[in-house]
């Protein structure tokens, strides 16, 4: 099994390793179709320019979410379980951009059910511009042998 982070290995202020992705039209279209999002601004450049006033097709909301999920669980390992994710798209990401994911640990806690939680501040940048700001709450094993995915009902408080 791949890397596995446990709560005792995390502290406030820790930085997640950056992740850079070069975006091309296929990146945008693949993400839109994987999300079953058929809206033309995610595959038709003319439509995006003429109707949305953007310079090109752009990455859609669920694709953005999927990238943040991947970024978080690349760091936690497979036992990391997302409880909540919130993001604000301040600007769009277009073909030709290199988008870079960044993150910091803002909080570490164990809830009253014994679940270990890490609060993350994440952001996505293109050049010197932040295009998306994100907060994520992810459960990681409170100790070796713990597994957040086994939690059900009142033991899961996302």
């Amino acid at each position: 099994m791949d890397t596995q982070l446990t709560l005792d290995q995390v502290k406030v202020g820790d930085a997640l390793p950056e992740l850079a992705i070069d975006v091309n039209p296929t990146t945008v279209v693949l993400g839109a179709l994987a999300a079953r999002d058929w809206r033309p601004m995610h595959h038709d450049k003319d439509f995006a320019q003429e109707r949305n006033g953007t310079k090109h097709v752009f990455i859609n909301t669920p694709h953005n979410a999927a990238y943040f999920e991947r970024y978080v669980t690349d760091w936690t390992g497979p036992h990391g379980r997302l409880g909540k994710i919130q993001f604000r798209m301040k600007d769009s990401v277009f073909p030709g951009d290199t988008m870079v994911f960044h993150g910091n640990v803002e909080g570490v806690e164990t809830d009253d059910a014994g679940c270990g939680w890490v609060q993350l501040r994440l952001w996505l940048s293109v050049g010197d511009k932040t295009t998306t700001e994100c907060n994520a709450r992810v459960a990681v094993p409170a100790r070796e042998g713990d597994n957040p995915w086994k939690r059900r009902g009142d033991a899961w408080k996302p």
Partner: protein
Amino acid sequence: MSDVPAEVQGWIGQKRYEEQGEFDVERGYIFTSCASVENGNPIFWSDKAANEVTDGPIAPPTMISVWFRPHHWAPGRSEQAQPLQVHFDLKEKLGLPEAVMTDNTITFGEPVRPGDRLKTWQVLRSVSEPKTTKLGAGRFWVIDVVYENQDGGWVGTESYTGFGYRRD
């Protein structure tokens, strides 16, 4: 809010468009989604890892909206079905032909598994006063989407903030 049509004001807080997904959760889309972001998490690619960690295969949690997005075409359908229909209703009723999503919050419950058939409904939470952004003049709105599995188990809630606008 006074200049928001009464019909739209009446939608606020109401449970609308309760519906079942058009197909079962399936692994083909799970693999396609993981490939689209190069997500190599073994719980999505390896049965052994999935059995050990998640008691069998699951879908990436952030795929939750995928399972209720309608087919682009289906027999007998005369108009294209829209996901998040409340969003499109607002565009029409408020006369705002363009729209983008600005904020998305997702809270995750029970894992979604291949073979599940999800149920969903939408609730309009708010409509803003008129605003002008670099895209144009319009309004923001907040829509919640709640998801359950076939056993009535809560699997997640999404909250979208949309901005509907007119390019003048």
